[in-house]
């Protein structure tokens, strides 16, 4: 509240300049969050690299544990011997769940590397997918056929030249031979594979194989069919192949294509499947959030272990602020969301790098927006270390450290934002206080000399220990010296008057003596002039001493109760005769206005105000004297028509020796009149002020006296 009134009193001395500066200064704390971001990015890089390194180390460790252990990598029946890789080799993918045998391969988590494509005549083609789950091998044959003809083998199953589409499946059996089964599509639904058994006398018969399940289905866009087959792995040996037998019209040549040798229906392509123990072995390395993939040297995926869920919630921070932060944080480091195919290609290229013999790491965009996977791949060497028998790849979601980074950053940014707000607030407060203090000091030093002839030496802030206190103290000592000086000046007039009086007396008494001597006429003229001069000098001396006399008179004044209204009325009545060339009006309450003070001094005060009004008005002008009273004070004002006051003189008018007179005046004037008014007003505890009349037609001097 005090501060507010101060502000009101001292006015709008542009209190915002210093404040604005400090405010801008405080805004530099915004560099803190920026530095924090840079640090966080740096930290993130380090974190990511160490994450990649540690993942690579784990990968290399697992690869080491698999070194030379082909039997652990591949199932016993499909140990890749010295044979060179064959395009007919089938590498089934390991599924995490058993697929539904329904003639649809959509749910198979397949990979390009586990796919064999064989082109047929025209637009016909075969795509062969293989997968394992636990002790089962699953095959999906996606056949594109320009003309679908159902197999008539139900009627004559052994007729090799029968019409329709027939699918042959051949694989090594446990006895060293090969089994051949055929599937003849007879419509949508489950069907059994049949094998041809040669009985005695060369008689053949088709028997159903009950252990093998199969479902035939048309493709969705009806450009062929799908055959999904489930075979117990125990039945299958090292080699396996399929053949599409397509005879659309009677008499037309039979078209066969696939991975079997069409002449003897013999499978030469190998089934390279992971050993069932591989999963068991890898499980010991399993850790939360890490996906583990083992691929063969050709890059075909042998097994994939999905990442167990991470403990805790590492979904990345959502909300407005984190998104804003990420906007200028992530930059180019993390790829935006990509398609599944792109991710697979990235994983594949990483595996290919490892196949070349060196461990490698990469950042792969994750499955969700803004998620990132750190991947590392390492080759698995044969026992002699010369061949690469497989590749192991670990993928870990980076969500955890990204989330950690985001959290840390969010907290950092929130903190610095808060700190900035605080700093700005503190700066604002500090600047406001500083401005107020400086304003107060400035105002005090301005008014110290302004209104008071005798300086007030006590300035605000003089007890403060800071630089403002020093400033205040030096102001005080300056004002003190100034006070001594003005004191000297004030008494100078009186002293001077006294000192001049003696020589003036000599001159005057000499002139008077000279006058009484017999003189010539000329001498009398000169004597008269000299006397006139000395009289004027005497008048000047009297005027110079007047202030001192008033001060003296005030010092000896006694206070009494008197009726101010009666005094004003009587005095104004007398002015009419004293200044016949002016008119006077008096406005005063009819009832007595009792005041405690010195009536003689009040009359003198009124005299001075009237003198002033007469001096500044023309002949015939009306001088208005008014007395207004309220509960606390009486206000006496004297208004005269005439030239308005210059603005800057409003307060200075009441200072000693200040006068605002333009025209030459023969009477001695020292501007003491209004100074005497001030002295008398102050003796009564009041205040005096000067102002222009509202229409600038003159000036009004007002004295306010407390009752």
């Amino acid at each position, binding site marked *: 509240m005090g501060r507010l009134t101060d502000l009101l009193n001292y006015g709008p001395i542009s209190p915002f300049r210093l404040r604005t500066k400090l405010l801008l200064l405080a805004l530099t704390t915004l560099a803190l969050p920026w530095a924090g971001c840079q640090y966080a990015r740096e930290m993130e890089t380090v974190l990511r690299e160490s994450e990649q390194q540690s993942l690579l180390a784990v990968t290399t460790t697992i690869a080491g544990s698999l070194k030379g252990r082909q039997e652990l990598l591949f199932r016993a029946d499909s140990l890749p011997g010295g044979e060179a890789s064959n395009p007919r080799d089938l590498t089934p993918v390991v599924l995490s769940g058993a697929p539904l045998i329904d003639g649809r391969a959509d749910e198979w988590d397949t990979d390009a590397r586990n796919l064999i494509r064989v082109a047929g005549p025209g637009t016909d083609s075969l795509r062969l997918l293989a997968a394992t789950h636990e002790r089962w091998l699953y095959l999906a044959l996606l056949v594109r056929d320009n003309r679908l003809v159902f197999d008539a083998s139900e009627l004559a199953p052994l007729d090799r030249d029968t019409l329709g589409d027939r699918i042959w499946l051949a694989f090594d059996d446990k006895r060293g031979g090969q089994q051949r089964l055929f599937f003849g599509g007879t419509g949508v639904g489950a069907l059994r594979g049949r094998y041809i058994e040669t009985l005695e006398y060369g008689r053949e018969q088709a028997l159903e194989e009950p252990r093998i399940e199969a479902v035939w289905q048309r493709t969705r866009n009806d450009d062929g069919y799908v055959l999904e087959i489930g075979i117990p792995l125990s039945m299958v040996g090292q080699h396996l192949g399929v053949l599409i037998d397509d005879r659309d019209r009677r008499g037309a040549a039979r078209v066969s294509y696939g991975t079997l040798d069409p002449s003897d229906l013999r499978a030469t392509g190998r089934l390279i499947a992971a050993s069932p123990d591989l999963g068991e072995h890898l499980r010991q390395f399993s850790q939360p959030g890490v996906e583990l993939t083992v691929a063969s040297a050709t890059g075909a995926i042998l097994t994939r272990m999905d990442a167990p869920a991470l403990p805790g919630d590492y979904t990345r921070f959502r909300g407005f602020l984190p998104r804003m932060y990420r906007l200028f944080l992530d930059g180019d480091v993390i790829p935006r969301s990509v398609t599944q195919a792109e991710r697979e290609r990235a994983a594949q290229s990483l595996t290919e790098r490892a196949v070349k013999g060196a461990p490698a790491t990469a950042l792969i965009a994750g499955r969700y927006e803004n998620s990132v996977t750190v991947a590392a791949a390492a080759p698995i060497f044969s026992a002699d270390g010369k061949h690469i028998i497989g590749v192991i790849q670990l993928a870990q979601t980076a969500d955890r450290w990204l989330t950690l980074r985001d959290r840390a950053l969010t907290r950092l940014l929130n903190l610095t934002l808060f700190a900035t707000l605080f700093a700005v607030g503190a700066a604002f407060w500090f600047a406001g206080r500083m401005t107020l203090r400086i304003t107060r000091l400035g105002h005090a030093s301005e008014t110290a000399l302004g209104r008071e002839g005798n300086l007030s030496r006590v300035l605000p802030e003089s007890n403060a220990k800071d630089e403002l206190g020093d400033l205040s103290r030096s102001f005080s000592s300056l004002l003190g010296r100034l006070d001594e000086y003005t004191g000297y000046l004030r008494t100078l007039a009186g002293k001077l008057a*006294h000192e001049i*009086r*003696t020589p003036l*007396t*000599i001159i*005057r*008494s*000499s002139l*008077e*003596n000279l006058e*009484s001597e017999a003189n010539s006429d000329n001498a009398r003229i000169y004597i008269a002039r000299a006397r006139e001069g000395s009289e004027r000098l*005497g008048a000047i001396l*009297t005027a110079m*001493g*007047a202030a001192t*006399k*008033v001060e*003296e*008179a005030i010092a*000896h004044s006694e206070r009494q109760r008197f009726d101010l209204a009666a*005094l004003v009325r*009587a*005095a*104004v*009545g*007398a*002015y009419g*005769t*004293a200044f016949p060339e002016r008119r006077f009006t008096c406005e005063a309450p009819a009832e007595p206005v009792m005041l405690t003070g010195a*009536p*003689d001094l009040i*009359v*003198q005060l*009124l*005299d001075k105000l009237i003198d002033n009004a007469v001096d500044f008005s023309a002949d015939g002008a009306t001088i208005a004297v008014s007395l207004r009273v309220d509960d606390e004070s009486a206000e006496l004002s004297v208004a005269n028509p005439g030239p308005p006051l210059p603005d800057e003189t409003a307060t200075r008018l009441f200072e000693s020796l200040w006068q605002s007179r333009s025209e030459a005046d023969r009477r001695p004037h020292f501007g003491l009149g209004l100074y005497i008014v001030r002295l008398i007003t102050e003796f009564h505890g009041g205040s005096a002020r000067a102002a222009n009349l509202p229409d600038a037609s003159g000036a009004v001097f007002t004295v306010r006296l407390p009752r």
Partner: protein
Amino acid sequence: MKKSIAIVEDERAIRDNYAAAFAREGYAVRGYPNRREALSAFAARLPDLAVIDISLEDEPEGGFELCRQLRGLSAELPIIFLTARDSELDAVSGLRLGADDFLTKDLSLAHLIARVNALFRRVDALRRPAEEKQVIRRGALSLDSERMTVEWNGQVVLLSLTEFWIVYALTKHPGHVKNRQQLMDAANVVLDDNTITSHIKRVRRKFQAVDEKFDAVHTVYGMGYRWVE
């Protein structure tokens, strides 16, 4: 025989000018520059009237001291302070020491001589028995214009010459307002407003010293003063 006047004044030019003026009026004048010389001369023979400056050579208040010593030598001797010092305090001190008048050097020689003459006249009058016709009576006041004495309720009120003339001017036409200029003319002085005010104040106080209820001198604001019976 010529009346003798002693002028004690350290400023030689002033002293000689005053001496010349008094001599012209037919007085025998002796001038002294300081208290010591004045006192040794007075010890031999007292003057008929003494005009004393307050500040004498090395003694800033030597005139006061001289006045006291002179009063010790003679109670009737008229003493006039004539000084450049015009402060209220000096005037009060001087009059309290028994001086008959306290004048500033602004006063013209003619005015000064008028006072000196008046004082001599009063000394003469005091030596003669009182004459009833010269006494003005206004209620409790009786004023002898020749002897320049004032009584209130039969009690003597000791006034300086200036004060007497002010009271005389006021009481000559009771109820009439006398402005400051008129009072100054009556008292043969040129004074500023404040000095008149302090003279009036002193007059009131001196009357109040013999009668607490004294309230005959009224201020008419803006005009002057009047005597009210």
